[in-house]
C-alpha cells in the first residue's frame, strides 16, 4: 500500500512541478510549487524521515515560498486582472484543485494506514531522539558553521536590500 502511495505522490510531485515551471504568472507558479513540496514532504515521510518531512512543510512550503510571494507582491511582478472580473476562470484553478485533492486523499490514507497496524509504518525510520543525538553530537561543529552561515546571510541580505545609503544621497545632492 505504501508502495502504491509512493508512486502516486511521485506523479503528483512531477505534475505540480511541471505546472509550476510553465506558468506565466509567478504567483500561480509558487502555488503549484507549494503543492509539489507538500507531496515531497509525504514522500520523505514514506522514506522514513518524519522530522525532515515536518521541516519541509514548515521551512519550504511555509517560509521560503511565502518569502517568494512577498517579493512578487512587493515588486508587483504578477500581471493584474481587471477588477470587474469574477476571478480566475475554472480551467485556471482546476489543476491545482485536482492536485490538492490527490494530496489530501493521500494524507488521509496515510493516517488511516498508521493507525491500522504495522503495515503502514516504514520498517525503518529516524525518531526525533536519534536525530537530535546525531545532529548535536556527531555533527555539532557543522551546526555551528551553519549558524554562522545563516548570520552572514542575514547581514548580507540586510546590506544588499537596504535603501540607498546616506553617503550616496549626500553625494548626489552635492553634485
Amino acid at each position, binding site marked *: 500500500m*505504501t*508502495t502504491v502511495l*509512493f*508512486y502516486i505522490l*511521485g506523479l503528483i*510531485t*512531477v505534475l505540480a*512541478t*511541471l505546472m*509550476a*515551471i510553465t506558468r506565466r504568472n*509567478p504567483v500561480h*507558479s*509558487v502555488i503549484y*510549487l507549494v503543492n*509539489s*513540496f507538500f507531496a*515531497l514532504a509525504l*514522500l*520523505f515521510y*514514506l*522514506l*522514513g*524521515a518524519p*522530522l*525532515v518531512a515536518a*521541516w*519541509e512543510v514548515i*521551512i*519550504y512550503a511555509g*517560509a*521560503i515560498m511565502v*518569502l*517568494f510571494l512577498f*517579493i*512578487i507582491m*512587493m*515588486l508587483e*511582478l504578477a500581471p493584474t486582472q481587471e477588477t470587474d472580473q469574477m476571478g480566475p476562470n475554472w480551467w485556471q484553478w482546476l489543476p491545482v484543485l485536482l492536485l490538492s485533492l490527490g494530496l489530501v486523499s493521500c494524507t488521509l490514507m496515510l493516517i488511516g494506514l498508521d493507525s491500522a497496524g504495522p503495515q503502514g509504518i*516504514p*520498517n*525503518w525510520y*529516524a525518531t526525533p531522539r*536519534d*536525530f537530535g543525538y*546525531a*545532529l548535536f553530537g556527531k*555533527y555539532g561543529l*557543522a551546526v555551528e558553521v*551553519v549558524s554562522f*552561515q*545563516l548570520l*552572514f*546571510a*542575514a547581514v*548580507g*541580505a*540586510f546590506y*544588499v*536590500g537596504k535603501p540607498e545609503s546616506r553617503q550616496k544621497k549626500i553625494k548626489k545632492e552635492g553634485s
Partner: protein
Amino acid sequence: MIVPLEHVLFLSAILFMLGLGCVLARRNLIMILIGVEIMLNAVGLTLVGASAFWQQIDGQIMVIFLMAMTSAEVSISLAMVVYLNRRKGTVDVRAFDEMRG
C-alpha cells in the same frame, strides 16, 4: 525500504531536470530562483532515499543542512532581486547582460 532505490533516484533525476530546464529556459529572475529551489529539493530527495536505503541517519542530517543553506541562499538572492529591480526597474535577465568594471 518500500520501493527500490533506483525508483527514488529516477524520480529525483526527473525533478532535477525539470528544475534545470526552468533555470535555463525562463527569463524571469524569480522563476530562475524557483528552478534552483526545485533542484535543491531533488537533491534532498536523493539524500533521504539513500538514508532509507542504508538505514543511516546521516543523509537526513545533510538534508537539514541543505535546508539551512537554501534559506540563506534565498534570503540573499531575493535581496539581490529587489536591488536589481530598483536599479533597472525590471527582473528580466536580458536587462543584466552587460558587465562593466
